[in-house]
């Protein structure tokens, strides 16, 4: 090869480098920058296909929750039948503010038209072009998107929201056997029907009404986490579960206290009275690995697959000393959980130790009512054996019968529950998780009252009880 050829090859090399760098850059742009670029308000692209009328959303009994109509100028208007009630589940769809909730995650489903409609439209166009179809068949050039049927029970949703009232917090109720979400309400919320007027207010408000507290809010769990500590204790052979509670103990320099000395307690009695002294020591015995393993079985530090956006519950992974282990054992320390995760935790114990994948969208149907997609019950995580789960269920019924959760008692029905009063930088969070009936659970529930100041037993348990009664009356 002579010099000239060598140089020409170098030119080829240079050109190749240039074009390959283009490919690399384009790929980089698409992976790391595109999402951010798209959100610019100067991006005028409408959200979804403007020719297709956006599909409707129904509850499990086919009550219409949301639908679209076309105005005279062909612009689509989205209607939310129950104003604030579904502001976090369905979310909003707005030309200026984008989408959230199911409107976001199911955007393409809702705007996907029936391919047969499209082909038929073109067929008629061809007929028109050849003047064959002389106004014999009216051409419907409009196509409609697919619709969603949710697992939510509208009546229960309405009732739960009323129960929550003006208190800040969240309620999540699940059918523990299928993973169907029966209700999911948050407070404060907003009205997706008039975003233009209220956006300024809701986007800057300190109470953050735009956040779906059930799936994206992270809170200290407090004593409801003791259910996980209990599971860990029963799963691990050799863990001491009998303690003499003197109302005070020092674990690794961290003082734990109880309201009163519980005296000689076994595991069941400890859970019944939510004894910090016992659970602090169990936490220390299980150690960091033991606690982390059992927490991760309960989906901590893992993305829960769900139809709308969720955040991960956090179990600290950066090394813990004995003091921190004690605090974590009773649900304090650096633990952070979402109400959805706590509802799933409860439903896992209710369902013989098998946590079902949560479902929000039951079916996707097209304009003719044909079911395109149906969610089937699926096991998400096996947290423990049926024996241990039943054992814990027994303990939880004692909590409601004669422990800290007596406010959740329902006449004639066995309720299993656990209270939590979580210390955090602000006022305490009140928690209550429960399921009923204890021997054949049809509803599992998590109630969180953010910074309520009171205890889980006095503030959150009555709410859970009322909602469970309402649900059990309907689903006998």
């Amino acid at each position: 090869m002579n010099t000239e050829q060598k140089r020409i090859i170098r030119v080829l090399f240079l050109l190749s480098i240039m074009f390959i760098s283009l490919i690399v850059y384009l790929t980089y742009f698409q992976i790391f920058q595109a999402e951010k670029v798209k959100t610019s308000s100067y991006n005028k692209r409408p959200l979804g296909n403007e020719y297709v009328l956006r599909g409707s959303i129904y509850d499990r009994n086919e009550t219409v929750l949301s639908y679209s109509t076309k105005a005279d100028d062909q612009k689509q208007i989205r209607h939310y039948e129950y104003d604030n009630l579904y502001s976090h589940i369905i979310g909003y769809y707005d030309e200026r503010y984008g989408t959230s909730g199911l409107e976001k995650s199911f955007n393409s489903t809702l705007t996907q038209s029936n391919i047969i409609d499209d082909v038929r439209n073109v067929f008629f166009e061809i007929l028109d072009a050849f003047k064959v179809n002389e106004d014999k068949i009216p051409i419907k050039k409009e196509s409609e998107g697919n619709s969603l049927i949710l697992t939510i029970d509208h009546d229960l949703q309405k009732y739960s929201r009323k129960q929550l009232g003006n208190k800040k917090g969240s309620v999540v109720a699940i059918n523990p056997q299928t993973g169907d979400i029966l209700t999911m309400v948050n407070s404060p919320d907003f009205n997706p029907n008039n975003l233009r007027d209220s956006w300024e207010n809701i986007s800057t408000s300190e109470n953050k009404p735009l956040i779906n507290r059930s799936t994206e809010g992270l809170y200290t769990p407090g004593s409801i986490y003791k259910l996980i500590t209990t599971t860990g204790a029963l799963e691990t052979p050799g863990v001491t579960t009998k303690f003499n509670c003197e109302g005070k103990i020092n674990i690794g320099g961290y003082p734990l206290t109880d309201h009163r000395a519980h005296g000689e307690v076994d595991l069941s009695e400890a859970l019944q009275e939510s004894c910090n002294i016992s659970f602090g020591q169990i936490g220390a015995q299980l150690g960091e690995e033991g606690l982390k393993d059992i927490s991760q079985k309960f989906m901590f530090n893992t993305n829960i697959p769900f139809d709308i956006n969720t955040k991960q519950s956090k179990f600290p992974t950066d090394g813990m000393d004995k003091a921190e282990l004690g605090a974590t054992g009773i649900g304090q320390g650096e633990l952070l959980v979402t109400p959805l995760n706590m509802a799933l935790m409860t439903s896992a114990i209710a369902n013989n130790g098998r946590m079902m994948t949560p479902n929000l969208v039951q079916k996707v149907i097209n304009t003719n009512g044909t079911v395109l997609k149906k969610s089937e019950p699926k096991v998400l995580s096996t947290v423990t054996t049926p024996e241990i789960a039943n054992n814990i269920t027994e303990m939880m019924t004692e909590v409601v019968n004669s422990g800290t959760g007596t406010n959740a008692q329902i006449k004639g029905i066995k309720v299993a529950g656990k209270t939590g009063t979580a210390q955090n930088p602000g006022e305490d969070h009140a928690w209550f998780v429960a399921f009923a009936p204890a021997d054949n659970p049809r509803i599992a529930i998590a109630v969180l009252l953010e910074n309520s100041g009171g205890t889980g037993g006095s503030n959150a348990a009555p709410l859970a009880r009322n909602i469970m009664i309402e649900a059990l009356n309907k689903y006998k």
Partner: protein
Amino acid sequence: MFKRLFSFKVPQNLLFLLNLLSLSLVILYNKSFDRLSIGVAVGLPLIIYISNLLLLKVSSGDHYLLLIVSMMMSLGILMIYRINPELGFKQVIWYMVGIITFYATYFIVKRITLWEKGMGLYIGLSFLLFLSTLIFGKTINGSTNWIKISGYSFQPSEIIKILFVFFLASYFVNRDKFENKYILSVIVYAHIGFLFIQRDLGSAMLFYMVFLVIFYVYENDRKFILLNLFSASLMAMLGYFAFSHVQVRVETWLNPWEDISGKGYQITQSLFAIAEGGFLGSGIGNGYPTFIPEVQTDFIFSAICEEMGVLTGIAVIMLFLILIYRGIKIALEQRNQFFRIVALGITATLGFQAFIILGGVTKLIPLTGVTLPFLSYGGSSLIMSFASLGVLQVASEYIYVEQEEDYEHGTEEDN
């Protein structure tokens, strides 16, 4: 013969399938079926088929060049037709004229053997065209580089691109007779100066890059090349500080979001389109490429990325890479020195031009308006691209050489 007609191992048939599928998709989603759609749906595959079959019969050279270009043309026309059916149909007509130009150039260039002796003519013609642009030029999109003749406007710089390559080739072929690198530089810089006056920064950059490549391969005085590079960067810096329109280009490249509704409008709209497309695209007819101004010419690539996906965009880049590879291969194998240099020059022109606009619309480099060869809408650009392809086709064949030994020993003296 019959089997060959339907086998998908034959590239033409694959191309035919692509056209059939994509055109029916466009017609489906554009919801229009009229004379224009028939024209495009019948015309495009027909031109591709006939032009490629004819080439097999006519030329003994590289048959892949036209095939690669046919693929590019298909993607381009598809997108243009989807954006505006009328322009799409016009582009099919231009494609036809382009193919005729391709064959005309091929036969003329092959028949005449005096090409390396026309240096003075090339320079003269170039400057004549430059001067007439200055005098009769129309300003379109901020650049005064169009001439309008009885309703049709064309860009003389498209013709000068080929003349420039021919001029450089004949200079280096005849350097024994009149080698003078200073006069050469003056003429080259005059070209670039003219383009700069017309505010056609993209072409100025393109001409200079092509010059540097040919200069790098053939100039014996290596220090003089470095001097050229140095002075070029000096001029670029001077240009940046002296001319506000150069500054604007650089600023909108560094931060287009700052003046998103003004100077940064085009490039940000292009980025939105690419971002919205994702890897697989929104689907033909489901995107909004018309939000980008001038989408059918300079920004056709962004439209392709939006509706057919970044993966198709990458495929387009790869097509150019294959075209460049074939071009360079021709330059390596050709024994006639004039056509060797011409092949290198044309390959470099097509390659750099594609890179300048591809890099521009994706914000890899500052945006300067040049067309994407074989994909953008536009008559003069397309016809001249096909003319250069015709020359490249000739260069891919065996050409009689008077002093073959000249090549064997090459330019040993500068080792």
